[in-house]
């Protein structure tokens, strides 16, 4: 889980200042090799505000008092790439693990937290899978969070473009769970209702209340510096039950990152809290 050196504030006036803003607000660092993207991502905002350059934006950020401009900037810079059924096999395993747990403790309502859920495809995919296994709202609670207010607003609306709906989602599931509206596809309320979306910053906000059976934190930690990553693992561990499971992205691992979690033999690729951490 390492990436090329991050942009440092000293790296260059405006770009450095904006990278620092992003890191301060979300913990996310921008790899120096991707710094050029920053200007591309912000171009529409610059144009909309009539700014000629990033320097103008940085000046406006310095003068702004309500933080709204900073929030817009951060939203544009966060990598929110996601899709339905991203890594299908992992999500299937998550559903299997939850089904097994439900069978072992039938009376208990299980709880799942999708952290860094972006525009909602991850928790909605899980909700579909769980329904298909007969695990409805009485069996499992789903909470999904993201630092980006814009992403959470979109997730709550459950509205997806034709491109988004076709990425990873089978036509049968699309027909079962979505309705078409012009060129968009909108999640049916029975699906959308399954997920409680809220805004939460993994770095600076407490975890959603209560204890979870399973937490997903997929493709979020990648651009955190290692100390922030360690602190986030700590927070995730604190949100899990003693026997809770952690799910990371396909290219991510806890190994060498934290002592709080270890791979679980029962579910390949999933992690449990280590005994020492309890």
């Amino acid at each position, binding site marked *: 889980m390492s990436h090329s050196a991050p942009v440092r504030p000293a790296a260059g006036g405006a770009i450095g200042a904006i990278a620092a803003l992003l890191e301060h607000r979300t913990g996310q660092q921008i790899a120096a090799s991707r710094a050029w993207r920053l200007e591309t991502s912000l171009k529409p905002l610059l144009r909309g505000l009539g700014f000629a350059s990033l320097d103008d934006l940085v000046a406006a950020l310095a003068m702004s008092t309500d933080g709204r401009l900073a929030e817009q900037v951060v939203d544009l810079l966060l990598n929110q790439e996601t*899709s339905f059924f991203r890594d299908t096999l992992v999500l299937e395993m998550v559903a299997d693990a939850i089904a097994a747990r439900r069978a072992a403790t039938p009376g208990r309502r299980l709880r799942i937290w999708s952290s860094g859920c972006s525009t909602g495809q991850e928790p909605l995919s899980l909700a579909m899978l769980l329904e298909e296994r007969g695990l409805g709202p009485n069996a499992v609670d789903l909470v999904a969070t993201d630092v980006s207010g814009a992403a959470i607003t979109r997730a709550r609306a459950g509205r997806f473009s*034709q*491109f988004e709906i*076709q*990425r*990873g989602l*089978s*036509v*049968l599931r*699309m*027909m079962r769970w979505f*309705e*078409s509206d012009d*060129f968009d596809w909108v999640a049916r309320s029975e699906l959308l209702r399954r997920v409680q979306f809220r805004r939460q910053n993994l770095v600076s906000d407490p975890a959603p209340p209560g204890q979870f059976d399973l937490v997903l934190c997929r493709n979020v930690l990648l651009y955190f510096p290692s100390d922030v990553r360690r602190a986030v693992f700590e927070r995730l561990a604190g949100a899990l039950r003693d026997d809770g499971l952690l799910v990371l992205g396909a290219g991510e691992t806890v190994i060498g990152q934290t002592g709080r979690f270890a791979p679980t033999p029962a579910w390949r690729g999933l992690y449990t809290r280590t005994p020492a951490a309890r």
Partner: protein
Amino acid sequence: MKTCLVVDDSKVIRKVARHILETLDFEVREAGDGREALDSCMAAAPDVILLDWNMPVMSGMEFLRALRESDIAAKPKVVFCTTENGMAYIRAAIEAGADEYVMKPFDRETLESKLQIVGVA
């Protein structure tokens, strides 16, 4: 190497689809309408067919029905690929035996994910 038959009356769409499919390691064959596609399938069944809806001579729907009734032994997977994006069309295609459905315009990710869903990529 898996074979994909691209059935579309637009040469441009066939070219775009071919390009994407070749990067996904498919051997690509082309047909300009349903009739040509049927002949092509009779000669050698592909693994998967990317099928347009509105075409001269024989439409995608007519082709699909003929294919499902034919005695071609190894039935290829059929992925509709069309500008028809209403639920009624989609439902009709699935009822007629299509395995997947792509609404145009499509990109590489869309095509790749749909081919994965039908189990050929």
